[in-house]
């Protein structure tokens, strides 16, 4: 039999690397297997890295990690065809240590992070695809890879293989995701000189902006678009639930092209040159879609476990936190001397008790509700735009009459009660 490790982690994204790092740091013999040419090579993220969960793994990581810009302003754009209503918060306290969150390019960040895990003693192998878990007596005892002599054993296998998690599926932990449980997102990294970014987004060199865009950006389908500033590039992307795409017969890249040429966006992109085009799924099923997380000798973390808060666009942080929790559980199980489902189960309970479980529970019906009731994205955003336009257009109409007109436009067709219901429903799912 070939070599045996304490832990095999499959996938060197934020989840897997956090787990490998924590386990190796505490003296476990860890093998981290990544299918990409290097960690991050193919990984995709809009680009907001939250400070808190990362800091819990590597304190003061910002002093060393390849980050793009700390975000000092979060903007929200509610876009119609030729207009938008915007709101934002900018705070310079976010421009200073310890910062709030950062934009990152995953290809750089993931590689750096994985190297840190290697420094802690984890063994990293790239360009190797894990094809399945080796199951003996209903216990996961290792993994099989696509390489010759490709079997390798461990006490625990941690599945951090991202949204599709074929491995967890093969174990029967979850079924094929339904189209409404995943969002398809496409994005481009576009090269733009530092100076232009600073000028267009009104920031200084080491300050970044995140823009979340709703409404016309997804043609009213459930989803959002985003625009984030890196050092000398920007990330622009758009995604909707797969079901939304199917329903509206939209092609993702077409959506992105339209977004890029939208009159509200285009001026920001002037002269920018596409460096990379990426497409990826985001698990958005939320609380109700969380699969079985623990089995004998196996655990599931990060996107593979559907740990994404779609409403707040949090994913990498949950991935990291879950990875860390999984590693801590393994350490405890090691003391107990057995890696049974029972001994690993505290990972599941810890996870549900943490912000991850709580947040996902809070929003558990949100996506579903918005999906069922397209009115929010299809109608309210344009209405908001028209309301603002009506209000601020100086045309001799009394403001009082304007308000009436606006109210009428909101209730037309849905009735006062309908609007009230919509508002209540929205409040309930995100409250």
């Amino acid at each position: 039999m070939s070599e045996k490790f304490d832990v095999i982690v499959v996938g060197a994204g934020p989840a897997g690397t956090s787990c490998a790092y924590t386990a190796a740091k505490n003296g476990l013999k860890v093998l981290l297997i990544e299918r990409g040419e290097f960690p991050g090579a193919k990984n995709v993220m809009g680009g907001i890295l939250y400070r808190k969960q990362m800091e819990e793994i590597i304190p003061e990581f910002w002093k060393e990690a390849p980050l793009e810009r700390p975000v000092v302003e979060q903007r929200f754009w509610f876009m119609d065809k030729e207009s938008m209503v915007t709101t934002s918060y900018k705070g310079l306290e976010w421009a200073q240590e310890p910062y709030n969150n950062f934009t990152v390019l995953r290809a750089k960040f993931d590689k750096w992070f994985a190297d840190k895990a290697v420094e802690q003693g984890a063994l990293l192998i790239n360009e190797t695809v894990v094809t399945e878990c080796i199951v003996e007596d209903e216990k996961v005892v290792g993994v099989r890879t696509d390489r010759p002599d490709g079997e390798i054993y461990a006490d625990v296998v941690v599945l951090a293989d991202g949204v599709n998690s074929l491995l967890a599926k093969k174990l029967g932990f979850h079924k094929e995701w339904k189209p409404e449980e995943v969002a398809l997102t496409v994005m481009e990294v576009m090269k733009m000189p530092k100076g232009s970014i600073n000028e267009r987004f009104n920031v200084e060199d080491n300050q970044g902006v995140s823009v979340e865009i709703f409404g016309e950006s997804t043609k009213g389908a459930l989803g959002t678009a985003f625009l984030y500033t890196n050092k000398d590039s920007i990330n622009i992307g758009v995604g909707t639930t797969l079901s939304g795409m199917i329903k509206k017969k939209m092609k993702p890249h077409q959506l992105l092209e339209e977004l890029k040429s939208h009159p509200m966006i285009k001026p920001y992109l002037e002269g920018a040159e596409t460096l990379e085009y990426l497409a990826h799924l985001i698990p958005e099923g939320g609380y109700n879609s969380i699969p079985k997380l623990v089995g004998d000798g196996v655990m599931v973390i990060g996107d593979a476990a559907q740990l994404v808060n779609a409403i707040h666009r949090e994913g990498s942080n949950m991935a990291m936190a879950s990875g860390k929790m999984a590693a801590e559980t393994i350490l405890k199980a090691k003391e107990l001397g057995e890696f049974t489902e029972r001994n690993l189960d505290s990972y599941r309970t810890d996870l549900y008790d943490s912000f991850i479980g709580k947040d996902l529970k809070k929003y558990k019906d949100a996506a579903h509700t918005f999906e069922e009731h397209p009115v929010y994205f299809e109608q309210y955003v344009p209405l908001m735009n028209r309301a603002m336009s009506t209000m601020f257009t100086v045309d001799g109409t009394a403001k009082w009459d304007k308000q009436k007109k606006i109210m009428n436009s909101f209730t037309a067709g849905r009735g006062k009660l309908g609007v009230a219901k919509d508002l209540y429903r929205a409040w309930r799912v995100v409250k």
Partner: protein
Amino acid sequence: MNILVCIKQVPDTKIIKINPKTNTLDRSSAPAILNPYDAHAVQEAVRLKEVHGGKVTVLSMGPPQAKVAIKKCVEIGADEGYLISDRRFAGADTLATSYALYKAIQKLMDEQGIDLVLCGKHAIDGDTGQVGPGIARRMEIPPLTNVIKVEEVDLKEKRMKVRRKIEDGYELIQSELPCLLTVEKEINDVAYSPLPNMIKAARYNPIVWTVDDLDDVDIKQLGLKGSPTIVGKMWPPEKSAGAEMIDGDVKKQAKALVEHMLEKRELFEVKGGEKV
């Protein structure tokens, strides 16, 4: 049979960018890879070892990061790897490179004996193919360049037969051992490395030597000082004005193309057409 393979870490020229202001290589833009030809050389060494026994050692000269390329060779199946790394090696052209590598090879020769040295046909950054024959000359062993096949190894008689690719075919050449081969890509397919090799490589730490670890080195022959050639200037290759585009429907386009092809009338047996 102990085989030594010289390998080099090179920037991936597919992704390389040139800084337009300084006309120098933007090294950060291009990931470093194992020179593709050298991967074939290592693969061939591993294959020969499987048949004839012995050991495969790789040797590289370069900055500390070049260890990554050596580890890649361990993935392919090399047993050991040495990196000679020292500021005094820096700036070497092919003459100084072959000298430094030769000095390291001498030391390995004394320590473990070497029956065969393998190199890539050329390194994709410098593209010279001069280092291999240079090493052979210094070791006073025959260089067999552009090898596409090892036909036979006779360890008892201490000789081998290989196919060398030449412009219009190949030649079958026999040489005494030790000798040095530079290999073409056709020589083999680099196999998908087995998992145990991957794990071994992930763990492996190449041995690093500085100038001081080598014996009887003439410092004057190393690095920039020992390099007769220098780069005078660099400039971006002339961008051609771009093609003259031919519009119209396909028929018209085809006709026009034929006319343009006939600008090279001398190439075609268009009888009677005057030779241009």
